[in-house]
C-alpha cells in the first residue's frame, strides 16, 4: 500500500517537520525525503491510488501513467540535487517553502482530478513566493509581491475555467480538452501564464533573478515544467501552440543578448527552452510529445545546473551582473567547468543532453513539413549558443578580469553541480534509459553523421561569428541598464492606473463635496426654510402694490413677513393664504 503513497503528501508532511528538527538531522532528512520518495515511485506500478468520493466527485490523489511518471521522476531527482545544493542554508523558511513547492509540483503532476490540481497549483504559487521573499532585500520583496499577484491572477483564470468546465457537465478527471469554449480557453490561459508564454511571461524574468541563490534552482525547475506537463496532458495537438512556441523560442533570445544580470539572461533562456516544448506540444505527434517530455527532463537538469553555477557565483562574490564579473575561472575552476557543461547541454552540442532531446522536436517539425517553424527553431538554436552557450560562461568566468578572487563554493554545492553535470553528460552519451521511460515507444536515432555534423556546423559557425564580433568590437557591450519588457504595462502602467484612479476618483469626490454636499444640500435646505415666505411674498407684493404700498413701508411689510415665517409667528390669515396658494400651485402642476 505504501508504494502508492503520493509523494506530494510526503513532501507536505516533511515541510511541517523541518522547523522542528535539529540542524544536523535536518540536513540528512532533506536529502533522505526525496530519495525515499524516488524509491517509492520506482516501485509503484502504473495505476490509480488514493482515490475517494467527495460531494459526488471522484478525487484522485495519485494517478501514475507514463506521462506523469517521467515528470515525477525528474521533479524528485532535481529535489535531491536542489536540497543538496541548499544543504548548508540555515533558514527553515526556505527549506519548508522549497518542500511545499516541490510537493505542489509533484501533486499537480500526479493527481487525477481538477480540484486537487487547483489546490496544488496554489500551493506552488504561495510557497515559491517565499523563495523570493527569503532573499530579504527590498528589491526581492517588491518582485515577490508582483510575482504572487500575477500568479494569483493566473490561478483565478484556471479556477474560473475549471468551474465553467464542471458547470457545463465536463469531467472532474483531468484529460484532453479542445480549445472551443470559454472554459477551455480560461484553463489554457491559466496554464499559459505558468508556462510564461508571451505576453504572460514577464513575471519570470522579474522574479527569478531576485530569488535566493538556492531558491532560484527550485524555481527554475517546477513552475514552468509542471505547466508543460499539464499542457501536454490537456492541449496536445492544439495548433495555436506551434506558433506560440516558435515565437517563444525567438522573442527572449534578443533580450538574453542584451541583459546584464546573469540570472536574468538564464531566465530569458528558460523561456526560450520552454518555447521548444510548447511547439512540440502543438505539433502533437508521438515524436513531438516524446521530444517535449525528454526536453523537459534534460532542461530541468541543465537549467538547474546553470542556475546553481550562477548561484555559486552570487554566494561567493555577492555579484550577479556581467559588468561586475569576469575572470572567475582563475579561482573558481570547478564552477566554471560545470557551468560550461550546462552551457554545452542547453546549446545541444553532441554528447550533451540537449542534443538528444531538442532534436526530436525540430525533427518532428521537419517531418510535418512546417517550413517556417523549422527555420525559426534553428534560428533560436543559434540564439541559445550565443547567450547561454557563450555569453554566460564567457562574461562570468573569462572575458575581462574583474579582479575578484573568490573560491569554489562549499562541497555540497560543488557536488550538487557535479551530479547535475554527470546527468547532462550521461543522458547525452547514453540516451536510451531516458528514451525508455518516455510516454511513447521511441523510434529515433540522434547520432547520425548528418545530424552530428549539421548541428556542430550550426553551433560552431555561430561561435565563429561571436569570435569575429567580439574582436571587431561590434558585439553589444555589457552595460548597466535594464531593458523594457511587457512588465512595463503593470509596473509603469499600474502606477499610471493608480494615479489615474487617484486623480479621477478624488476629483469626483471633491466635486461631490462642493456641488452636492455643500451646494445642493444647502440649497434644498434653504429652499425648505424659505419657500413659504418667498411664495407668500410673490402673492402679497402685487396685492400690496395694488393698494399703493410702496417704498419703505413695502420693505417693512416684507421683513415682517419673513420674520413671521422664520419664527412661525404669523397672523392666521397669512398662513391660510400661503397654504391656499400652495394648494393652487400643486393643483395647477398636477
Amino acid at each position: 500500500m505504501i508504494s502508492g503513497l503520493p509523494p506530494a503528501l510526503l513532501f507536505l508532511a516533511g515541510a511541517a517537520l523541518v522547523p522542528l528538527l535539529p540542524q544536523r538531522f535536518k540536513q540528512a532528512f532533506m536529502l533522505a525525503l526525496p530519495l525515499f520518495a524516488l524509491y517509492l515511485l520506482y516501485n509503484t506500478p502504473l495505476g490509480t491510488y488514493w482515490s475517494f468520493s467527495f460531494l459526488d466527485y471522484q478525487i484522485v490523489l495519485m494517478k501514475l501513467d507514463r506521462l506523469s511518471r517521467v515528470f515525477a521522476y525528474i521533479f524528485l531527482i532535481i529535489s535531491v540535487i536542489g536540497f543538496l545544493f541548499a544543504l548548508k542554508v540555515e533558514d527553515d523558511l526556505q527549506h519548508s517553502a522549497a518542500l511545499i513547492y516541490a510537493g505542489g509540483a509533484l501533486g499537480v503532476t500526479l493527481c487525477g482530478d481538477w480540484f486537487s490540481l487547483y489546490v496544488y497549483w496554489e500551493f506552488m504559487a504561495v510557497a515559491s513566493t517565499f523563495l523570493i521573499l527569503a532573499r530579504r532585500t527590498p528589491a526581492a520583496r517588491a518582485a515577490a509581491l508582483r510575482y504572487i499577484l500575477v500568479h494569483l491572477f493566473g490561478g483565478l483564470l484556471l479556477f474560473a475555467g475549471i468551474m465553467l468546465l464542471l458547470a457545463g457537465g465536463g469531467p472532474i478527471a483531468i484529460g484532453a480538452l479542445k480549445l472551443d469554449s470559454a472554459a477551455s480557453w480560461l484553463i489554457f490561459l491559466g496554464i499559459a501564464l505558468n508556462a510564461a508564454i508571451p505576453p504572460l511571461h514577464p513575471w519570470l524574468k522579474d522574479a527569478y533573478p531576485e530569488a535566493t541563490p538556492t531558491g532560484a534552482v527550485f524555481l527554475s525547475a517546477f513552475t514552468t515544467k509542471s505547466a508543460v506537463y499539464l499542457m501536454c496532458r490537456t492541449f496536445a495537438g492544439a495548433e495555436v501552440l506551434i506558433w506560440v512556441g516558435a515565437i517563444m523560442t525567438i522573442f527572449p533570445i534578443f533580450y538574453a543578448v542584451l541583459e546584464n544580470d546573469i540570472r536574468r539572461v538564464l531566465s530569458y533562456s528558460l523561456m526560450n527552452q520552454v518555447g521548444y516544448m510548447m511547439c512540440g506540444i502543438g505539433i502533437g505527434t508521438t515524436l513531438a510529445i516524446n521530444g517535449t517530455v525528454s526536453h523537459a527532463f534534460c532542461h530541468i537538469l541543465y537549467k538547474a545546473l546553470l542556475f546553481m553555477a550562477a548561484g555559486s557565483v552570487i554566494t561567493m562574490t555577492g555579484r550577479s551582473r556581467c559588468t561586475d564579473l569576469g575572470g572567475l575561472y582563475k579561482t573558481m575552476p570547478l564552477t566554471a567547468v560545470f557551468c560550461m557543461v550546462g552551457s554545452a547541454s542547453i546549446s545541444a552540442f553532441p554528447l550533451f543532453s540537449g542534443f538528444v532531446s531538442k532534436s526530436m522536436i525540430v525533427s518532428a517539425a521537419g517531418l510535418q513539413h512546417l517550413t517556417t517553424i523549422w527555420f525559426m527553431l534553428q534560428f533560436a538554436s543559434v540564439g541559445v549558443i550565443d547567450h547561454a552557450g557563450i555569453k554566460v560562461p564567457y562574461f562570468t568566468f573569462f572575458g575581462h578580469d574583474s579582479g575578484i578572487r573568490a573560491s569554489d563554493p562549499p562541497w555540497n554545492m560543488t557536488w550538487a553541480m557535479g551530479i547535475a553535470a554527470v546527468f547532462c553528460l550521461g543522458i547525452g552519451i547514453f540516451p536510451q534509459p531516458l528514451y525508455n521511460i518516455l510516454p511513447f515507444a521511441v523510434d529515433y536515432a540522434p547520432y547520425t553523421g548528418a545530424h552530428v555534423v549539421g548541428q556542430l556546423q550550426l553551433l560552431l559557425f555561430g561561435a565563429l561569428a561571436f569570435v569575429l564580433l567580439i574582436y571587431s568590437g561590434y558585439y553589444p557591450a555589457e552595460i548597466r541598464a535594464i531593458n523594457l519588457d511587457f512588465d512595463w504595462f503593470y509596473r509603469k502602467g499600474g502606477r499610471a492606473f493608480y494615479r489615474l484612479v487617484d486623480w479621477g476618483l478624488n476629483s469626483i469626490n471633491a466635486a461631490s463635496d462642493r456641488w452636492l454636499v455643500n451646494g445642493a444640500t444647502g440649497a434644498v435646505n434653504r429652499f425648505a426654510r424659505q419657500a413659504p415666505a418667498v411664495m407668500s411674498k410673490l402673492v402679497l407684493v402685487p396685492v400690496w402694490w395694488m393698494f399703493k404700498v410702496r417704498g419703505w413701508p413695502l420693505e417693512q411689510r416684507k421683513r415682517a413677513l419673513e420674520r413671521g415665517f422664520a419664527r412661525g409667528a404669523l397672523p392666521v390669515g397669512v398662513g391660510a393664504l400661503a397654504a391656499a396658494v400652495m394648494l393652487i400651485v400643486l393643483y395647477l402642476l398636477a
Partner: protein
Amino acid sequence: MRELKIFDKAVNVKRLLICLYVFLAGLLAADFFIHKHGHFSWENASEFYAAYGFLCYLVLIALAKVLRRFIKRPEDYYD
C-alpha cells in the same frame, strides 16, 4: 589561493582559436563525406548548416543592437 592563469598568456588564447578554426575546417570537409537524409531539400545542400548558423548569429546580434536603442533604460527606471 591557487590561481589559474592559462588565458593570461595571449599565445594560449591564440592556440585555442587555432583549434577552433581547424575544427571548423574539418566540419566543412566532413560535410562531403556524410550520408544526408534531411526533411527538406536545402538540408542536403553543401554546407547549409554552416552558412545558416553564421548568418543567423550576425542577424541576431544586428537586430539586438537595434532593439537596444528602443528598450534600454537606466537601472533605477522602475524605482
